[in-house]
């Protein structure tokens, strides 16, 4: 078992003829993801990496029954692509595009809700269910099948920590990079709930960072609703206020969104917070053994 993506995933790649779209279509197909279609207006009838291309998501869904979409189009067109997928009946959209205006995401949100579409991203590396499906740009060699759920707001830091888990023999059910933007699709609590309900997941690793209060909400959710152990790490303890630390969402505003606040919230919720990434496997071991 796993969450969100698996062997039943039928993926359509929006922006398949672009450089990134084409490259990652190849990688996802190689990994075994069932990529059924690509979209690139005006190129219906062509193929990319052996995948048929359609003019619209609607056409792709009609022809292939695609149920999941990944978006590689440039930021100014990303919101439109998300809406196109949602209105065509796609139930999970993963938006890789970086630099999408916040207002675009705010406008998109209620339409997705109406249509019952889940969104991951934008500005995210996507997700992977090891051994089943890669829907994203994550480097596959570091992942391993197993029973740890993983959620993170960042990219390479995710790889760093997943790599440590795999080296310590903690395989993963599903690893989700939710992206670093202030207004995004699924947040920590949405995914924590999914992992809580996934029978194969026995514990969750959560990688947060400064900005917003998604971590505080996650801590509250864990304290109130979760039975499975969670171990956390928060990046940005040394970040100065008022500066955007690479991610559009990683900014401490008016004293809110600091790492200290987030760590305190997790500690209060009984979630051990690692001082550095290398500590995570050990905390996970102890937590699973009931030692902390």
């Amino acid at each position, binding site marked *: 078992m796993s969450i969100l993506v698996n062997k039943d995933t039928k993926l359509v790649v929006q922006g398949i003829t672009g450089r990134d779209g084409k490259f990652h279509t190849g990688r996802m197909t190689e990994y075994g993801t069932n990529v059924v279609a690509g979209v690139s207006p005006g190129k219906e009838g062509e193929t990319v990496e052996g995948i048929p291309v359609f003019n619209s998501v609607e056409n792709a869904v009609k022809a292939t029954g695609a149920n999941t979409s990944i978006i590689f189009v440039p930021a100014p067109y990303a919101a439109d692509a998300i809406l196109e997928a949602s209105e065509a009946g796609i139930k999970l959209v993963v938006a890789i595009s970086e630099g999408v205006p*916040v207002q675009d995401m705010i*406008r998109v949100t209620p339409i997705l809700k109406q249509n019952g579409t889940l969104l991951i991203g934008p500005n995210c590396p996507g997700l992977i269910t090891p051994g089943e499906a890669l829907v994203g740009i994550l480097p596959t060699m570091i992942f391993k099948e197993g029973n740890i759920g993983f959620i993170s707001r*960042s990219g390479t*830091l995710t790889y760093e920590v997943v790599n440590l888990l795999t080296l310590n023999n903690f395989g993963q059910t599903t690893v989700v990079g939710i992206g670093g933007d202030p207004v995004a699709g699924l947040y920590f609590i949405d995914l924590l709930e999914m992992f809580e309900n996934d029978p194969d997941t026995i514990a969750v690793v959560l990688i947060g960072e400064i900005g917003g209060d998604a971590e505080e909400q996650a801590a509250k959710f864990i304290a109130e609703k979760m039975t499975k152990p969670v171990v956390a790490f928060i990046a940005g303890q*040394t970040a100065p206020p008022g*500066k*955007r630390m690479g991610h559009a969402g*990683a900014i401490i505003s008016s004293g809110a969104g600091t790492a200290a606040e987030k760590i305190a919230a997790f500690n209060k919720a009984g979630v051990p917070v690692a001082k550095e990434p290398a500590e995570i496997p050990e905390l996970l071991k102890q937590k699973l053994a009931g030692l902390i």
Partner: protein
Amino acid sequence: MKIHEYQARQIFRNYGIPVPADVLCYTVREVEKAAKELNCMVVVKAQVLTGGRGKAGGVKLARNVEEAVNAGKQILGMDIKGLTVEKVIVTQAADIEKEFYVGFVNDRNTKTVTLMASAEGGVEIEEVAKNNPDKIIKYPVNPLTGLLDYQARNIALQLFGNIKHAQKAASVLTKLYKLFIDTDATLAEINPLILTTDNEVQAIDGKMNFDDNALYRQPEILAMREPDEEEIQEIAANEKGLSYIKLDGNIGCMVNGAGLAMATMDMIKLYGGSPANFLDIGGSSNPQKVIDAMNILLSDKNVKSVMINIFGGITRCDDVARGLLKALEIIITDVPIVVRLSGTNAEEGLAILKETGLPTVSSMSEAAKKAIELSKR
């Protein structure tokens, strides 16, 4: 992106929000001229891109031209949180009956533009939020309908009580919402919005921030940018595909990925060092990017050692190593550098770097320890 108060006031005016006239002045002479022309009690206000201006003495009331000149002399050139005041506005002092706070902000939780309003205006809204959270009205605006007239009116009526005042305030709210959306703002704040003694509603201070991701479609906003020295450096880095923030430590960091870059800074601190910067070079192995990054890093004379921390994902470590090799051929510095490579093809990468003689390691913590050690020599 931030703008000055005088710029926010102009945007407000363009949308029909009542704002008292003001004059932008760079010199005391200009202040004198402005005070004479306004010919009334005025306020002289420092224009700096930081908060806490009032507490720092950057806002002064002047009852006559002489007092205005004195205020101008005191404020122009003063230092507020490390920023030198280069300009002030001189504006008519208002006859305030009551002060309110109104502002729109992008709210992550409701995923909406949210109206924040309070009858406790004139003080920092964060303090009201902390001490009297029930004194703040938070209203998430439905993105599909925008702020509707009845909503603005009902909220204004809660604040102002009187319907005539509320109608004027409601009109300010709908205009402020419209300009927020039109300009891709992330914050549009009027604090205070005042009721004057003759029953007018006016904005007498304004603050606006904008979404950097949306500046490509906001040429008029972009044209208002007045970056300080630090920001100029950050913008220059951005144009080279780098994300750079200067800090006050002495260990330069160069990392691929924002999260990992923050974690790197944190680790340096954890091990007793002090990071000189945040620097994310993104996911490419382009040598030019490494050269640009090193140049930016080393332009900070406090930097005593550099930690390069790369986790290879799609970008393979051997490619990164080759890029580093080329870059290091060009960069001439005596600042010691430690390189950490991990992830895809890390061994091959480390092998390539061997010949440079640089200390190379495979774990973050080793790299941090080494960089700290080097910084102390």
